[in-house]
């Protein structure tokens, strides 16, 4: 019965979203306030019913209701409880329900936190979100119903969740990622609403900014978690494969990053208007495109859900409708949005101004996104054009992405010092002197020390470039911070307390920028150094054997057999020593999951900031021997630490008081917000 309640709740939610898509929008044109306000209640109602539906599906999993096809395919009586819950979104149908739930959450959030927006705008935003919900609701109910039953002969046992998914990663990664993907639908809705209404100014940018930043934070963390999960779960020590599904998450992120930067120009200078709107539409379009690629079977991927062309047609139609109509609207209404009074002519900026820097940032980010899009889709395009079956893999993507990132990092260093409208080139060069020297020294000297601690590594150009770029970003950022603190403190006494006081006066978005930029430097450092100094050995070992890898000694102590809740495993104990001191005891396993008769490698890690020790079991060999893969991976943890920092930076920006308080004067930025208010009312 519970499944039927879930099914009905979904249908009710669909009806509500239909109403949400039509009524507020109609009201906004006709001027009926009650209709416009209805959007808020409808969004909240939709959330209630989608949540009920989701809860029903979860209950079915917890109760081992194998009469549901979806539960039978993805669960098992022996599956631990936390994985039964995460199995809800472990495959196609359930993950779509998660999408719908998160879409309802964001819509409800917009409904709750939009009281300071003009009703015309908020009602249109909610209508657009409603229309998207209708699309997903129809897709679920018509093609991917998680509540479909197997009757009359229901299995008594389920097929079990894919062993690779029976992990903490499944609990956190998809929800975070979806919060990001779906979050950009809000930005999308804001953009389309602006195009419909023709009203687009700095006020719009100020309202949209927190929504854009939050979605971006979630996506950043979602991608970071995904990479980290792949690293420890898949058993071979890799953390990014340029797999189509991974690219599907990186592309909206790159566009989102461009958007986060572009919107600040729109807000502060009224420039880049059309471009910001386009980016907002593009970010969500890429999210939807990702959904299509993963579920239609047109591309091969280890992450792909289902190879179902029929579902593919539906998503493609939905995608075409949403993206096509919004881009058409953009093309038709674009000029209206551009032509604001007393604006376009007055906005001018020269060579090294902040506007130019941000434009360069956008160019590089969008080029990177386009490159990834072309590379991911090329096999498909070549096949359609009968050019053969071509593979495009990491060598292609790395070839272009690495120099683009380096370019961004170099520009990032300068950009921190750039001023709006005009920046003095000499000032930039002067500011850059010391950081350049520091970075150069670090880049040339550090690889020698790194080579010493990892015994045989030779001097590497990649390490030099990575270190140089990362240090450059960090030193330039710190120099700017120092300069701001210096100015901020009173002239007479530049003592510690006065400096610290001026720390608090800096706005959240400034801290956000600093933290995020430094996060990029840390991440790049991790990427570069771990790929250069990674040491790997594949050896044949019997219990008692000892082998030396990069200054560490690993001994194969023993092999035992353990029984897990739904698997049996061969478990090795491997001890790691450095300079004859025990550093770590590792337990890699080779698991066999009974339900699917599937064998899986569970790697063992000793994590550290400066290095990871990574051990996994290969195949059992003749006699007692096993093939064992041992890695020493320096600085690999910096990758995800950097990712988290980037997310934290975004969070600090979201929390910036200036965007949350409604024109209330606050300490430092009172002049700015008053002036902005003047500007808004003047237009």
């Amino acid at each position, binding site marked *: 019965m519970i499944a039927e309640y879930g099914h009905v709740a979904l249908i009710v939610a669909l009806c509500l979203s239909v109403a949400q898509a039509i009524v507020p929008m109609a009201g906004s044109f006709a001027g009926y306030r009650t209709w416009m306000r209805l959007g808020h209640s409808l969004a909240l109602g939709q959330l209630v019913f989608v949540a009920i539906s989701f809860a029903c599906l979860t209950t079915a999993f917890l109760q081992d209701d194998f009469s549901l096809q979806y539960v039978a395919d993805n669960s098992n009586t022996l599956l631990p409880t936390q994985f039964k819950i995460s199995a809800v979104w472990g495959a196609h149908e359930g993950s779509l329900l998660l999408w719908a739930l998160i879409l309802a959450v964001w819509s409800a959030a917009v409904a709750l936190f939009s009281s300071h927006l003009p009703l015309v705008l908020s009602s249109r935003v909610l209508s657009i979100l409603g229309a998207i919900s209708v699309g997903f609701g129809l897709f679920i109910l018509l093609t991917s119903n998680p509540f479909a039953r197997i009757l009359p002969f229901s299995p008594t046992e389920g097929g079990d969740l894919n062993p690779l998914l029976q992990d903490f990663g499944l609990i956190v990664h998809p929800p975070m990622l979806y919060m990001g993907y779906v979050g950009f639908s809000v930005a999308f809705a804001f953009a389309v609403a602006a195009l419909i209404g023709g009203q687009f100014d700095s006020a719009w940018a100020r309202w949209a900014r927190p929504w854009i930043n939050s979605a971006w934070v979630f996506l950043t963390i979602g991608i970071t978690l995904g990479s980290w999960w792949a690293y420890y779960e898949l058993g071979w020590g890799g953390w990014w494969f340029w797999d189509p599904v991974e690219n599907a998450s990186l592309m909206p992120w790159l566009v989102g990053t461009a958007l986060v930067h572009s919107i600040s120009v729109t807000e502060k200078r009224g420039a880049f208007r059309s*471009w910001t709107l386009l980016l907002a539409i593009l970010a969500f379009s890429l999210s939807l495109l990702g959904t299509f690629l993963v579920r239609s*079977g047109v591309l091969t991927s280890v992450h792909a859900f289902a190879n179902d062309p029929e579902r*593919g047609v539906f998503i*493609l139609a939905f*995608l*075409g409708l949403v993206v096509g109509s919004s881009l058409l609207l953009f*093309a038709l209404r674009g000029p209206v949005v551009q032509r604001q009074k007393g604006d376009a002519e007055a906005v001018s900026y020269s060579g090294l101004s902040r506007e130019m820097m941000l434009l360069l940032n956008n160019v590089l980010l969008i080029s990177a996104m386009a490159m990834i899009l072309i590379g991911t889709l090329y096999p498909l395009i070549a*096949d*359609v054009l009968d050019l053969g079956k071509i593979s495009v893999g990491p060598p292609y993507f790395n070839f272009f992405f690495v120099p683009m990132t380096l370019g961004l990092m170099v520009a990032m260093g300068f950009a921190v010092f750039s001023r709006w409208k005009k920046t003095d080139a000499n000032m930039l060069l002067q500011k850059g002197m010391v950081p350049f020297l520091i970075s150069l020294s670090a880049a040339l000297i550090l690889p020698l020390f790194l080579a010493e601690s990892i015994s045989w590594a030779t001097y590497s150009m990649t390490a030099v470039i990575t270190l140089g770029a990362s240090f450059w970003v960090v030193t330039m950022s710190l120099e700017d911070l120092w300069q701001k603190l210096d100015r901020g403190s009173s002239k007479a006494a530049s003592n510690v307390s006065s400096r610290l006081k001026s720390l608090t006066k800096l706005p959240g978005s400034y801290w956000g920028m600093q933290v995020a930029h430094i996060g990029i430097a840390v991440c790049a450092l991790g990427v570069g150094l771990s790929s250069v100094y990674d040491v790997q050995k594949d050896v044949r070992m019997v219990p008692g054997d000892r082998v030396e890898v990069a200054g560490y000694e690993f001994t194969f102590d023993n092999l035992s057999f353990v029984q897990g809740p739904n698997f049996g495993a061969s478990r090795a104990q491997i001890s790691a020593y450095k300079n004859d001191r025990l550093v770590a005891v590792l337990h890699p396993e080779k698991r066999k999951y009974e339900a699917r008769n599937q064998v899986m490698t569970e790697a063992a890690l000793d994590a550290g900031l400066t290095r990871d020790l990574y051990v996994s079991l290969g195949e059992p060999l003749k006699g007692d021997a096993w093939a064992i893969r041992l890695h020493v991976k320096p600085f690999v943890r910096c990758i995800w630490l950097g990712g988290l920092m980037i997310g934290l930076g975004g969070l600090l920006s979201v929390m910036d008081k200036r965007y949350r308080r409604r024109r209330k004067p606050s300490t430092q930025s009172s002049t700015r917000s008053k002036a902005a208010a003047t500007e808004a009312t003047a237009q």
Partner: protein
Amino acid sequence: MNRLTLFIPFALCLALGAFLFFSLGKDPLDLPSALVGEPFPEFALEELHEPERQVSTDDFDGQVLLVNVWATWCFACRIEHPWLNSLAKDGVVIVGLNYKDHRKLAQDWLQERGDPYQFSIFDPRGVLGIDLGVYGAPETYLVDAQGIIRHRRVGVVDERVWNGEFRDLYQQLVDEANAE
């Protein structure tokens, strides 16, 4: 941005949509053989039933034939086998390539299910398999009278596949061979 450039994103979206539409239904893992139009690779391996007998492309004897890659560990091969038996009865020459298998198991398998093959090449280490670009059983190659590979199918060859992909070409090749 001027008026016309605003339409570029829309135009790109349409183009992309068209590509995606036409890509639906295509199987990205259905690989064309690199050897279509090339001579069947040279090999010198033992025959499955007679270990003392060495076979090579000479044993193709100027016939138009199918080379069928099979193994006892391959489940789909069991599904395909009855159709191969029926083809052999109709006079289609089929040569088996026993791929990465055990000789005794393979011989018993054929004993049980019938042997449609004129002879079976025994390739326990998969060396001919690599030269052919085999990546999984079953696979079937159509070879013409001059020893050139004309078509490859990865997957089961049943009546539908035979009629759709092989029959006409096979007939054409046989006619050409007979005309000489």
